[in-house]
């Protein structure tokens, strides 16, 4: 059976999306993306520092990989739209992770401004992926407005705390008819696997891979865990029970001596 996540005509077989921030170097980032065989990688847009003469990160993203530009730094819908338009003009395509954040302590997104940005950018033919606080009503409205997927957070960005919002994300997975991609806060492969077992269409991981002692191995570990979680979800996870259900037959026991 071939299992694809199809978004905007692109068939994605690897459901681990990787963020490219915080890596020690671009070559290490490239090795990590290759080791994970990731097909979607996020980047950010920033002012050029002419003194640093930074290398072009796009050259270090393996060619089959779809680049998704985030709108980090945007504090309202208008700024997110501006960043998306600049990113498109820079030639990196039209896949945009909409990220609108006004809260510096927890980096929690502003759902209402994010929804506004979705509405504007969809009309301009962007493929949009709103990063949001898990909320069924807003998620539905984002999907109705034309978001290609909705990206609820597992826990605050870079916190490595896992899927603390599990109950709300599970409801979104069950009720919203676009892919749900868990983004942010996943600190180890088992947590990514848990998201996939729940029925998340994909996960986006950055910090946990980039800051690992060996980012290349960690990328591979996340990729394997995402694959395992997806297989488990497709296989049908059994219900839980309060009491034991014997795995061995309960008949045919040996008799004791009389």
């Amino acid at each position, binding site marked *: 059976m071939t299992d694809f996540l199809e978004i905007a005509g692109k068939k994605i077989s690897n459901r681990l999306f990787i963020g490219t921030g915080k890596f020690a170097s671009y070559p290490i980032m490239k090795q990590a993306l290759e080791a994970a065989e990731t097909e979607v990688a996020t980047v950010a847009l920033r002012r*050029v520092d002419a003194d640093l003469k930074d290398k072009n990160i796009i050259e270090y993203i393996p060619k089959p990989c779809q680049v998704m530009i985030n709108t980090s730094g945007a504090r309202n819908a208008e700024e997110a739209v501006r960043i998306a338009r600049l990113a498109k003009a820079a*030639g990196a395509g039209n896949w945009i992770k909409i990220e609108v954040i006004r809260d510096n302590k927890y980096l929690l997104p502003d759902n209402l401004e994010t929804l506004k940005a979705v509405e504007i950018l969809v009309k301009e033919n962007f493929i949009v992926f709103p990063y949001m606080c898990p909320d069924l009503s807003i998620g539905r409205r984002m999907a109705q407005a034309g978001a290609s997927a909705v990206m609820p957070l597992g826990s605050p960005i870079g916190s490595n705390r896992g899927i603390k919002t599990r109950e709300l994300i599970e409801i979104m997975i069950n009720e919203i008819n676009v892919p749900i991609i868990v983004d942010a806060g996943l600190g180890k492969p088992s947590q990514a696997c848990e998201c996939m077992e729940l029925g998340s269409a994909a996960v986006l991981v950055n910090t946990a891979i980039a800051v690992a002692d060996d980012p290349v191995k960690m990328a591979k570990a996340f990729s394997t865990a995402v694959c395992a979680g997806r297989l488990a979800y497709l296989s049908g996870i059994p219900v839980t029970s309060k009491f034991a259900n014997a795995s061995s037959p309960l008949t045919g026991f040996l008799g004791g001596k009389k």
Partner: protein
Amino acid sequence: MVVSINGRPEEIKMQSNLAELISNKGLCADNLVIEHNSVIVPKHKWQKIALKENDFIEIVSFVGGG
């Protein structure tokens, strides 16, 4: 004359255009995008945009991000 580049005032030569500005700064034009007075300027028009005193220029590019 003085223009604002990425939020900082900078002295540049008179009669410069955007293409010359990027070249003089030693920047590679790949994946760069320029906003000139809040309007995005496509690369093929960089040479046609003559800079004027007090222009606002933003030069942005891609960096790592999640």
